């Protein structure tokens, strides 16, 4: 088990077409260990689709992906937090315990692991509340706890702080930074340039299904090469590409 790793995650000529539309067009990238990688881009760029492919939830219609050399898609040590995470009809405790037992944690270790996860996402006080009654920010933290329960070496986050207020955003960003610091590779979708600047080490800039730029964060923000990226950073509405 310890030998299995998802890194590097390779995408080679990955294309995804559905219903006559090309959502992703010939994307090649290598995601290696290190600081978080952000997928940045305007709405409809194909960011979420790319993340679902990276999780192995769907197969590309062209090209291929591999996780640490494996092309088999079972989500070992890999986890995802969806943009709108679905809470199981259970308590917070029930949600996280379910994720832990699915990750193969033996039952005698469940309670310890549960408590440390709840502390990590600051949900100890809400442990016995029904998860579906929580606020959006609290649900995001439940989803993060469920994802971290898998002890992922690759953690995929789809707009982790969309629709959250500044306090909730801060809480979630701290959890993300903590996971990254403890060695989990994070691949996160965002359309928030400021957040990407705070968290990410490098950036994949996606527009209309095409990878327009791939650069370290500092370089991307200081000397963005493409006019498209420049106009995105200026806050222009990217309607054409």
């Amino acid at each position, binding site marked *: 088990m310890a030998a299995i790793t998802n890194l590097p995650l390779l995408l080679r000529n990955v294309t995804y077409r559905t219903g006559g539309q090309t959502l992703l067009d010939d994307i090649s990238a290598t995601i290696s260990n290190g600081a978080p990688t952000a997928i940045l881009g305007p709405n409809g760029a194909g960011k979420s689709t790319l993340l679902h492919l990276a999780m192995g939830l769907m197969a590309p219609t062209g090209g291929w992906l591999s996780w640490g050399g494996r092309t088999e898609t079972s989500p070992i040590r890999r*986890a995802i937090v969806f943009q709108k995470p679905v809470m199981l*009809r259970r308590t917070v405790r029930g949600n996280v315990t379910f994720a832990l037992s699915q990750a193969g944690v033996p039952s005698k270790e469940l309670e310890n692991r549960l408590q440390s996860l709840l502390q990590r996402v600051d949900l100890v006080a809400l442990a016995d509340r029904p998860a579906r*009654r929580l606020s959006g920010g609290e649900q995001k933290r439940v989803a993060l706890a469920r994802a971290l329960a898998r002890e992922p070496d690759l953690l995929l986050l789809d707009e982790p702080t969309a629709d959250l207020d500044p306090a909730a955003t801060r809480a979630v960003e701290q959890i993300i930074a903590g996971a990254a610091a403890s060695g989990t590779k994070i691949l996160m979708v965002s359309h928030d340039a400021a957040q990407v600047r705070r968290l990410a080490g490098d950036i994949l800039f996606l527009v209309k299904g095409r990878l327009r730029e791939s650069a370290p964060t500092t370089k991307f923000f200081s000397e963005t090469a493409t006019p498209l990226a420049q106009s995105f950073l200026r806050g222009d509405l990217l309607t054409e590409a």
Partner: protein
Amino acid sequence: MDDAGAWRLIVSADPALYAIVYLSLKISLSAVLAAGLIGFPLGALLAFSSFPGRGAVIVLTNALMGLPPVVVGLCVFLALSRSGPLGSLGLLFTPTAMIIAQTILIMPIIIALTRQTIEDLWGEYRNELLAMGLSPLGRLIALLYDARISLLTTLLAGFGRAAAEVGAVMIVGGNIEGFTRTMTTAIALETSKGDLPLAMGLGLILIAIVIAINASTWLLGAFARNRMG
């Protein structure tokens, strides 16, 4: 009509009357239990699986929800009668035969409603469960567990049908006094004999029981929903 007579029977706790009530409950609840044990997994399986003719199977189970009890009774009667395929078991005109008939009668309801519930929940849970790497069996268990409150209502629908029907239990049970007489068959019999107070008393008890079971299930569901969201 002499309503006072009906009340007197209820209040005086007539032992024959309570034997009938007990048998009715025993048969209908056993049938609901059996239909749930078989119908929940089958319905969930139908929600997931894809095979040629799946649409036809779904339409058929939906249609069978309206299965006429007398037809079920007739079929079970033929199967259990002395010259039938299961005649050697000697089950005809026993409570067991009545449970079998009611189980068959309400099975389509359980399967059809379970299929719908699980299919909807799967649509919602799909990505999360796949991302956790659940096996097909694991998904089945997780979905049935998380749908448990809705499935409780499914059981109620089945119980309502079982408790209310008279045709199937009449045919395979035979309405034998003290042995296979249920509330519904007794009501039918007493009405035809002209003993309206007894029929009325039984009718009132039947309605009261159905309301009580629905109310307690509703309370249980409300409690669970409050705790689990």
